């Protein structure tokens, strides 16, 4: 096979304009396909980061929007395998002007001590940690958020509450860095409780739980839920990743969306590639006759044509992947309200799968023209005029 390599490349470059156009066309579709694969991979297949694998989230069984009594925290803490439990309450509210989506960011009222234990992957200078813990009206913001809105240590942040009415003023005491999710603001839940009437204080939106062993996540989650099985307020505990995925599911049938677009794309590439190969084989029937006269077997001829198609497909795939990785890099810079794509990376095996698809499409698309060309009788092939 390898002795034909130069013949194959010569053939592929013979009609340069056509090859380049085909490569561009395949590249465009494949760029998109690999991007979709990367999104799918990031959402459903990638490994959970070790810190996240040790976290569970408990919410009210009825829905996330209905709070639970805060004393559940102490009961959850007694479940074997649980290391720490923190309260999390979505604050909502409005920062500056709600009409500008750039002003939107997630803000949670939390147990500051528990937060620092549970989110162990957050990188915060020790002195800032201290300052945040000491100041009841202090807040902790992510580095990406600080960059986006120009927050600095010591700045005041004013939020207008909606779920919890009133104006809340915070002082930025610490800024954390993290590989993912560094666009959130956290503040002391006691500050929130104190602003509310006594009877309305003891609630928790969700509990974030740190466990000792990621492998026992399912059994610990079950143990927590069974604690409250007969209580008025029942709970639902899942891993932090499942919890995050439920938000993706909320957007709609994302899997179906990714799948149908990928199918349409693959089929488009197949059409483009088949079209090109049919055209280029048709032009060369006479050459096939010559090759056969020289003693090339039908199988060799078929192999040469199929390999040419695979070559063009892979070339398109490589260009496509280059563009896709550029797009990924651009998407990582996207504002945080497009959070799903913030950690998007074109993993090497996604690239491998894309290139494999490209090569396969080349082979499949050229199979019919290659087969019929290799079957043409020498005399007919030599007689053929384009």
């Amino acid at each position, binding site marked *: 096979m390898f002795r034909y390599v130069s013949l194959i490349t010569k053939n592929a470059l013979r009609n340069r304009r056509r090859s380049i156009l085909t490569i561009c066309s395949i590249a465009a579709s494949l760029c998109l396909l690999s991007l979709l694969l990367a999104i799918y991979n990031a959402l459903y297949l990638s490994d959970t980061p070790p810190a996240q694998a040790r976290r569970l989230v408990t919410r009210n069984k009825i829905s996330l929007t209905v709070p639970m009594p805060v004393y559940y925290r102490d009961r959850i803490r007694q479940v074997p395998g649980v290391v720490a439990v923190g309260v999390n309450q979505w604050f909502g509210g409005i920062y500056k002007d709600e009409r500008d989506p750039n002003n939107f960011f997630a803000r949670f009222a939390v147990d500051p001590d528990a937060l620092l234990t549970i989110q162990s992957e957050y990188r915060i200078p020790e002195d800032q940690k201290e300052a945040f813990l000491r100041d009841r009206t202090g807040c902790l913001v992510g580095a990406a958020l600080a960059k986006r809105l120009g927050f600095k240590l010591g700045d005041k942040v004013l939020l207008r509450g909606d779920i919890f009415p009133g104006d809340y003023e915070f002082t930025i005491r610490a800024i954390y860095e993290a590989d993912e999710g560094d666009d959130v603001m956290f503040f002391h839940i006691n500050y929130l409780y104190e602003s509310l009437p006594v009877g309305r204080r003891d609630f928790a939106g969700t509990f974030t739980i740190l466990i000792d062993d990621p492998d026992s996540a399912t059994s610990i989650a079950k143990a927590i839920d069974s604690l409250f099985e007969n209580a008025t307020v029942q709970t639902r505990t899942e891993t932090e990743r499942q919890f995050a995925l439920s938000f993706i*599911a909320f957007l709609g049938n994302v899997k179906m969306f990714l799948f149908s677009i990928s199918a*349409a794309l693959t089929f488009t590439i197949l059409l483009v590639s088949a079209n090109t190969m049919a055209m280029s084989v048709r032009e060369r029937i006479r050459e096939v006759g010559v090759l056969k006269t020289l003693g090339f077997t039908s199988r060799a001829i078929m192999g040469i044509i199929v390999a040419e198609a695979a070559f063009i497909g892979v070339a398109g795939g490589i260009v496509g992947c280059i563009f896709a990785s550029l797009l990924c890099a651009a998407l990582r810079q996207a504002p945080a309200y497009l959070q799903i794509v913030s950690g998007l990376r074109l993993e090497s095996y996604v690239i491998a799968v894309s290139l494999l698809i490209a090569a396969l499409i080349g082979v499949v698309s050229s199979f019919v023209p290659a087969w019929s060309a290799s079957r043409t009788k020498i005399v007919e092939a030599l007689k053929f005029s384009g």
Partner: protein
Amino acid sequence: MAIPVSYNLRNLKERRMTTLMTALGIALTVAVLLAVLALVNGLRTAFEASGHPLHVLVMRKGSTSELVSNFTRQQFQDLKFKAGIARDAAGEPMVSLEMVTVINLASVDAPDGINVTMRGLTPMGLAMRENAKLVAGRWFEPGKREVVVGKSIASRFPDARLGGKLRFGRGDWEVVGVMDAGRSAINSEIFADLNQASSDYNRSEALSSALVRATDAVTVAALVNDLESDKRLNVSARTEKDYYESQTQSGAPVQFLGIFVSIIMAVGSCFAAMNTMYAAVSRRAREIGTLRVLGFSRASILASFLLESLVLSLLGGLIGVILVLPLNGITTGIGNFVTFSEIAFDYRISPTIIAIGLTFAVILGALGGLFPASNAARKEILTALREI
């Protein structure tokens, strides 16, 4: 003089495989675009069909959604006797105090559960929603743990079928009826008795919002102004229509993604069309030479090949439209971040959408055909005749 169109049509027919494959490529691109547009259009239609033109939605100051709003019975008493509020046949002011919350139901698509809106309301609230018609069962009775579900809820969630039981608040609620409100968002809601629901959630005093009907179209604006500026009530008021219209934004991510995908696919199809047209030009070099000898100008050759490309892409566009037509009327649901719950709606393919798809295809064809056509037009007669 122009070259007859039949020349191009015959040529496309002659090379039917190539024509078909190129057209199919364009068709898929158009189909993806149309599917997304049909989805966004369906969503918009659902929101536009929601809300009554005379209704004003009253929430706590600063609230952007009923879910985060709080509205007390005291506020409601003060609101009830504002000027400009319509009265029903019995002389009662048409004002409805409501409680909105979200419950999580398992569906066939999402066994982990999807959020849906549960609304507690009074008989007046039901009366004010004239468009909600009962299609099965009966309305709930005040004081009982009974719910009536929108028809999309009934069809999408197995637990919410007529006779089923839903578990929220402090226990089980029986599904006693199914309602249909045309295309309105009410189809994605669950209705229950206000007093029963609010006591289950410990919210007997702090409910969510109030819905008010103005006497006529002119009073609506006045009523909104009056409520907004009432310092004692401290509420924000907006028309119900306006409230739902602002939720159309929940389709924005899908729309953005869909258009992004379509544009990249269009680039690919454009190159493919170019390829096909270049092949057509080079195969017909001798014909082009002959046409020139016969006296056709360069301009008419350019026009002829460009036209051929347009016909090719239009064919693709038409196939694309045919491909997406079966989607029309299929129900789907997407998350609405304002209500934090799912809204179900039908894909809707409108004539405008079809026109957009065909225009998109034609633009694609024009871009893909321009270079090959100008290449054909620039050919020298003698060299063209000598080419094989």
